[in-house]
């Protein structure tokens, strides 16, 4: 199939790539832009490992076509730390041992940041339901929820 030229913005940088119209945004990020921090766990929008934001909206990048990224703003895990400083969520995930294998971690961090951007003081239940679309098979979620709570508290304190 003839490829389509796509111009988009990823983590603040303007980028271009040629996409087969059947390729997902996830495929394009990973295989055309070498941004492999975003993971594929299912390809059907069930696991959330491929979470990114598209014009500020949290999406599963496996359910978005690459060509749909034209003219949009995309944020991925690679853009989460700024100026060499980790986002509080990233720091708290390490401190709380909120990851074991780490494969779901980028998607969970992107999703958790999206939660805290809209709700700086989520309850445990709100965190659990927000992250219900991000599967983790290692941790049982306990330490993940605690890390998000702790990061939220720190961010509220700092604000």
């Amino acid at each position, binding site marked *: 199939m003839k490829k389509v030229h796509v111009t988009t913005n990823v983590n603040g940088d303007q980028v271009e790539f040629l996409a087969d119209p059947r390729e997902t945004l996830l495929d394009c990020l990973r295989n055309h832009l070498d941004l492999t921090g975003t*993971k594929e766990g299912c390809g059907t929008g069930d696991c959330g490992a491929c979470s990114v934001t598209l014009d500020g909206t949290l999406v599963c990048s496996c359910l978005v076509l690459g060509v749909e990224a034209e003219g949009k703003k995309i944020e991925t895990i690679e853009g989460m730390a700024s100026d060499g400083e980790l986002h509080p969520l990233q720091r708290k995930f390490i401190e709380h041992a909120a990851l*074991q294998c780490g*494969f779901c971690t980028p998607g969970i961090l992107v999703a958790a940041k999206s939660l805290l951007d809209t709700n700086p003081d989520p309850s445990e239940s709100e965190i659990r339901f927000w992250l219900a679309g991000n599967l983790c098979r290692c941790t*049982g979620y306990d*330490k993940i929820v605690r890390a998000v709570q702790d990061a939220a508290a720190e961010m509220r304190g700092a604000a």
Partner: protein
Amino acid sequence: MAKDEITKGYRLVGTRPNRPDGLDKVTGRARYGADFSLPGMLWAAVVRSPHAHAKIKRIDASKALALDGVKAVVTRADLPTGLEGEDLNLQENTLAGEKALYDGHAVAAVAATSQLLAQDAARLIEVEYEVLPHVTDVDEAMKPGAPVIREGAADYSVPEGMHPNVVRHMEFGHGDVEAGFAAADIVREGTYKTEATHQGYIEPHACVGQMGEDGRGEMWVCTQGHWYIRRMSAAVLGIEAANLRVTPSEIGGGFGGKTTIFMEPLTLALSKKAGGRPVKLVMSRAEVLRATGPTASASMDVKIGMKKDGTVTAGQVMFRMQGGAFVGMSPIGEALPCAFACYDIPALKHEAVEVLANRPKAAAYRAPGSPMAAFAVESLMDEMCRELHLDPIEVRLKNAAKEGTKSSYGPIYNRIGLVETLEAAKAHPNYAIRLGPNQGRGVASGFWFNHGGETSVSLAIGEDGTVQVSIGTPDIGGSRASIALMTAETIGIPYENVRVNVVETGALGVNEPTHGSRATFASGKAAVEAARQAIAEMCRRAAAEWEIEPEAVEWKDGAAQPAGPNAGKFPPMTIAEIGAKMGGTGGPISGHHETNAGGVGASFGTHVVDVEVDPETGRTTVLRYLVVQDAGTAIHPAYVEGQYQGGAAQGIGWALNEEYVYGSDGRLQNTVFLDYRIPVASDLPMIDTVIVEVPNPGHPYGVRGVGETGITPPLPALAAAIAEATGARLRSLPMSPPKVLAAIKAKRQA
């Protein structure tokens, strides 16, 4: 080190520093299986059987090969013949031969210049099948009329007269079971079933392989054990192991499912046919569910005799398990010894058969066999406790195995911590909380052997006194941190001064995978031995410098020191000073340790769960959950807790939701995470943990493996809790809402 030498008061062991690979894993930089690429790389796709059982009459790849950009196709005809035993099983599973044995069985593979093209090409490969009758249920597969899956597959152990699908048999026990039942006040029996579940790691299998015409190859693969990948791939392809270099990626979960090969050798076979271009193969989730893992399904009869005071007088089990269409894949050999491992019972009889079925080749899954066995035995124990109005923890304490108990499978236990976990569970505030209507509490204990195994570790001192440790067990849940802690503790240097690297097959002797709860135990033990070797050498270097006997030098706080006033007066020589000078004092300083690690400490745990069951829908909500488990010594307690919590979550999934659903056509019906539903964050409460520490005398820091036992108790504990909440006892997993609702309705009608 004898156990009485184990003392607390470590400097680093037992602390919770940040893991060394944490930064890479929160920034997306850590490279997992599918993240690796090479110049000139091709992509592969696999053609899979849509039938549960079918003769393969013809494979025609001409249309696929005619596509521009398609570089190679391989079928079984491209693989060597004459393999035997498990090697043949592995080859048969990598690519089907005369028959496809399950829905999803690989039949052919193709390599092309892009992933989409490879997938297009796979659809153009024509396979002609003659569909055969199939069977997927373990009990059905043993019935007289069941289709025979592999003629003559039974091994030496099967007595004559059994169905040809029965391929292994095992039996053992001790004492007089009939006398034991006669001495009991009540004797009860039950039949229990568990469905197959998948390990459910979030990272699908992925591999990049490259092999030239000379048969030399390289692989980059996500695996729990790259030496296993090397040996198995070499066997399937008929090449020499030393010609294959295997580098492990970071691994996105394994739980036993990544201790073997499924499609990895295909990358090498395709690469060789495509002129040596590297080939990448990444499974889809549907391929993972249809054709990798899962665990066995089981049908189990249990009989227990108990006195009115809770003393168990005798026990008997008959387990039937299927592990797919391949001999030796069901965990009967583990399930039977686990069945009564928690108890000291005078008379026991264990029997099991393995049965073939048209299902994928099962792989190990966290404490293989133990969760099923516990579901059967612990459930019946609980039923009898309730009938006799006895507290389930008291009954377990009364019968608990301890140091000196002759275990259910023969050997005498050394120091074990089951009683301590029961006492801690009893004392925990969760056990005293009063329950409301439609709520119930369940208790169960669990066991896993733990494993040491083949281990090779190398350690080298840097010129600045920092230390690098090379290990061969991939880090799945923070084992780099625990091994760095033990190494730094032993040498007496900061945690941050130790870097632990997981290295490729060319860099160390053979290592078994990260399996059997062995990484922190075995690689840690070997790292400590290697560190001690390097310390001895550093003491020799200092002695030479000071011109005193090496025996007059001791190692303390990261430095060589004179061992006493008679040794002479010298200021301590630090590891940094020794490292800086080592080029001129004899060359590089390193330590190695190669072993088949013994001294594992058996692992026991006790769980307490509270649930609420909605009587209108049958849905179970887990209100609170407590895991108590003996860690020996918790090197990095946060990651020990993580193992407890993760094991419990997987067990909860197995108990309540997860199952392989086969249609009458023999096809797997639930091949995506939407339908194969693992627990999500909103399904679970916080999971409380208590780390019991009964140090293992077989490890320098007292470590017992902690990875596996946690998946075992949730199955029976949840069945007990649901029984208390509803009055209905479920003896078949999963206890999904429709099944619980049906059980509640049946109870009401009765």
